[in-house]
């Protein structure tokens, strides 16, 4: 009997507590930089696309919401011919970001992407690609990789020695 009255009193005193509700559209919570929201494709410092179309994000995606087609330009640089993310399927797990070897695909702190038409949730490459470097400024995959592409031969990458002519090592 006493405990009933006590619990009613405690509930009653909650009248004078501060309310926890965040009045969302007017008042927004601060999102941290590592918040997993909308997915973007970033560019390297030279404004080239970072994505090399390796399909690792599509393979890592647990809900199969990423689809892309890799192709090569005249310099031998790989890039996605199309890159499509179906955000009505995406669960924002961030596995694609973890799988990406070139820091191209990144999740950013933005979640306000509601649409009236479901089809509008399918983002094409032009919707995904941003003119920025995202979380890893200064990183350029082709500048650090040993792969030869047009305009950059073997041995010309950062911290890379010129290739050794194996025949010159013969005794």
């Amino acid at each position, binding site marked *: 009997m006493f405990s*009933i009255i006590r*619990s*009613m009193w*405690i*509930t*009653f005193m*909650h*009248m004078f*507590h*501060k*309310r*926890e*509700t965040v*009045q969302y559209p007017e008042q927004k919570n601060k999102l941290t930089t590592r918040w997993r929201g909308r997915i973007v494709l970033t560019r390297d410092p030279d404004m080239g696309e970072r994505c090399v179309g390796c399909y690792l994000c599509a393979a890592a995606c647990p809900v199969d919401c990423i689809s892309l087609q890799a192709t090569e330009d005249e310099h031998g640089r790989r890039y996605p011919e199309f890159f499509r993310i179906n955000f009505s399927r995406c669960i924002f797990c961030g596995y694609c970001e973890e799988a990406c070897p070139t820091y191209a695909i990144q999740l950013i702190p933005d979640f306000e992407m509601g649409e009236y038409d479901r089809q509008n949730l399918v983002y094409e490459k032009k919707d995904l690609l941003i003119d920025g470097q995202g979380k890893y400024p200064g990183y350029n995959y082709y500048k650090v990789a040993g792969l030869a592409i047009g305009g950059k031969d073997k041995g010309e990458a950062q911290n890379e020695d010129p290739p050794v002519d194996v025949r010159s090592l013969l005794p």
Partner: protein
Amino acid sequence: MDEATINHLLIVGGVLGGLLIVAPGLIWLERRLLALWQDRYGPNRAGPFGVLIVLADTIKLFFKEDWIPPFADKVVFVMAPAIVMITVFFSFVIIPFAPGIIVTDLNIGILFFLAMSSMGAYSIILGGWASNNKYSLLGAMRGAAQMISYEVFMGLALMGTVLLANSFSLVDIIEAQRGMWFVIPQFVGFVIFFIAGIAETHRLPFDIPEAESELVAGFHSEYSGMKFGMFFVGEYLGITLISSLTVCLFFGGWLGPDFLPPLVWFVLKTFAFIALFILLRASLPRPRYDQLMEFGWKILLPLTLINLMITAGVVLMREG
């Protein structure tokens, strides 16, 4: 039509209209108060303080598909929600809102109310039975047992005030409280009446016939649209009814200091009790079914009988 008839019709219309406004208003009030006690805001977007949510809810209920399950007993299924509304509305006939503002001052007022609230049990039983669904049936059985057993203590708890006022008429009972509100000599009666009242309206914590977490929604799980709405309105009117009866029987009805008109006193007191109903919902968990029955028959029944005997003894001693 002479003036008395018009006046009477005005009162009837006013009571009916007032109740039809209060019932959906209570839904808003309950959601806001629950939110207040749970550190939330509740509906606060539509209109000032979110009152228009009621309008939106009503429109939504009217436009929902009014589905009668093919396995249901159609006639009974349609009748059940009407019964709860009718009985509750009939009970309001005997409530005196202020001197002169009463639909009819029956000399068997309280007995009429008890009869009507017993009839209300039919809506639960018939609704659960006609749904032809095991959860509904379980809810209906629980509801029947709960309402019938709590009816007993409810009636007995009231008899103390009836003895003191020497009348079944609510107007006489209120007039008898001019010296002292009956809550002081009849405190046990008040507590038991209020507990029984919660059980009668099957409100939380005694919402055992509905028991959302056990029985889906109990007796009204098959109902939709405005038929469900009628159960809902019946429940909220039931709260208003029990609150206003508590005020009439134990808290002096319209009596109060002169700076406010009697009707305002009545409404204020009633709303205080409605808020208490909602506070109970916010704070107490639902007891188990057997606990409810045990509490009723093993604690409340002996208590009411003792209370009644002592009151009767005191009344006899004063007369003798």
